[in-house]
């Protein structure tokens, strides 16, 4: 009798202890991830933010201050230019190439696709920064948005073609057949038949590209020299390294305004498309 009771009690005790331990570990891990982010949520609304997390003296003045800072606004515009520019280039070239690759089978097509994908994972921004810098230098595109867009698009395009080809493959060919019967040429068919059907895929690529470019630090840091050309990712770094006394009211508001769009887009895309599309050229 007594032994059974002890065993039973031991079971409950072990169970209880393991529940407590489990909860404790989960709380600690959550704290680890949350702790640095609390500042991002509170400091922008604090009239006198410091680096320490503290309950704010609520205000929206910091955002007014941000809106009045010409460099900050300019840099967000630059981020948009780079994002939209790269996106447009990648969508047009990617749609054309993936459509051609989907509809015409040349020998070794899949091999080429895999080779391109492999290439884009090997030739990363970090590993190729010296030749990329030198190439853009020789093309006299240093400190231009075009240079940054070309480099970013070159790195993203293999993945884009790979994903878009999947979409193109899944489009039923009967639509194109009927369009052709009515005398539409290939370009017309692509523009008026294929692109409208592939719109979800193209929209996904557009969003994904903008998110990738928005956060990219290294390429614009390397290729853009003056603050009036730099995107927010680079100017943010300049703000907290080069100014003697960092202006925390400006930096905190800037951090939040700069982060919120990608956070929103990301959770939207994640919910909608699932895990398949994580990662990529994030480096």
């Amino acid at each position, binding site marked *: 009798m007594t032994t059974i009771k002890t065993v039973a009690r031991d079971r409950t005790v072990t169970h209880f202890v393991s529940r407590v331990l489990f909860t404790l570990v989960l709380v600690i891990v959550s704290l680890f991830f949350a702790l640095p982010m609390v500042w991002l949520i509170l400091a922008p609304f604090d009239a006198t933010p410091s680096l320490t997390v503290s309950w704010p003296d609520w205000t929206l003045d910091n955002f007014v201050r941000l809106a009045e800072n010409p460099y900050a606004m300019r840099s967000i515009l630059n981020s948009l230019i780079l994002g939209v520019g790269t996106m447009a280039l990648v969508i047009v070239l990617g749609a054309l190439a993936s459509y*051609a*690759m989907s509809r015409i089978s040349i020998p070794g097509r899949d091999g080429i696709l895999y080779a391109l994908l492999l*290439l884009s994972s*090997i030739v990363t921004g970090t590993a*190729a920064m*010296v030749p*990329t810098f030198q190439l853009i230098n020789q093309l006299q595109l240093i400190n231009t948005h075009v240079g940054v867009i070309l480099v970013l698009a070159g790195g993203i395009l293999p993945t884009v073609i790979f994903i878009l080809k999947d979409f193109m493959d899944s489009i039923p060919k009967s639509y194109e057949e009927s369009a052709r019967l009515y005398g539409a040429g290939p370009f017309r068919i692509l523009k008026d038949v294929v692109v409208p059907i592939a719109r979800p895929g193209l929209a996904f690529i557009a969003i994904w590209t903008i998110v990738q470019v928005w956060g990219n630090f290294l390429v614009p840091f390397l290729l853009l020299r003056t603050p009036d050309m730099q995107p927010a*990712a680079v100017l943010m770094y300049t703000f907290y390294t080069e100014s003697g006394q960092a202006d925390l009211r400006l930096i905190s508001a800037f951090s939040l305004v700069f982060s919120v769009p990608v*956070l929103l887009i990301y959770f939207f895309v994640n919910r909608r498309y699932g895990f398949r599309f994580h990662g990529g050229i994030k480096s």
Partner: protein
Amino acid sequence: MTEATMSAGSVRAPRRRRAEDVAGLGRARATLFAAPGLLLIGLFLLFPAIWTVYLGMTNYRLTGFAAANPEFVGLDNFATALNDPRFWNSLWLTLVFVLVSGIIGQTILGFSLAWMLRNVRPGIKTFVETLVLAAWVIPASVASFLWLALLDRRTGTLNSLLGTEGAAWLIQHPMECIIIFNIWVGTAFSMQLFSSAISAVPPSQLESARMVGANTWQQLRDVILPNIKGHLLTNTLLITLWTFNTFTPYLLTAGGPNGQTDILSVYIYQTAIPGGQLGLGAAISLIMLLINLVIALMYTRVSRGKSGKKVRS
């Protein structure tokens, strides 16, 4: 022209082509469609990689005489790099960084999170997952400032929480800082990968393991691990590749103090751009490209091996 000759030449080809090429694209026009994209990739992705080989054998500099008139110096740059203790220090730091923050840290923490969250209440699961994912999505330059604020010597939140006034984490323990920072940033990937891998394990197998009295540890070892072996390998190789190529620690420590966090990506940058030694920088880049090539080839082999399963792009 080609179309006509081809359909006349063979009987089977046109039927197969009709099935594929419904828009009447034809090879010539298809090439035209694909050309701009492939040209861009060729010029801004493939060419730099190949050019690195040549650049690495010159004494190119950013400014001065050698900028306008670079000379071919053969393998001198490689000899310089291989004889430079700074290079070996950098390689060693990179190894430690990849191993501890990527392969061990992110993988173990990501797996533990996936395992712990698999049957907690949905609300809690979403909350924790959102936190971990947010750390991965926040742009690198913001994330690093958040950590600078957390670790600040005088007014950092960590010091005020621990009561360690004036502890200069980034100066006293710089390597530990960038390792923990990188775990914070990157764990989301492993967590998501393992979470989908664990949910694909047949519940019946876990059920029977539990029936014969296997404890959690035994279930993990004998049921889960054999089932997710492929994912584990994929995870390790991708994490290795990404951690090896990250430049973000630069935003936190800029390689310092005294080169204590001088990982390979930072070392290349410091040598080539502020240091102006483009030739030497290119030589080290080539070494980095070759290491990337090896990791990527291993990854292709692994993902080809488990044919039929979806390959992550």
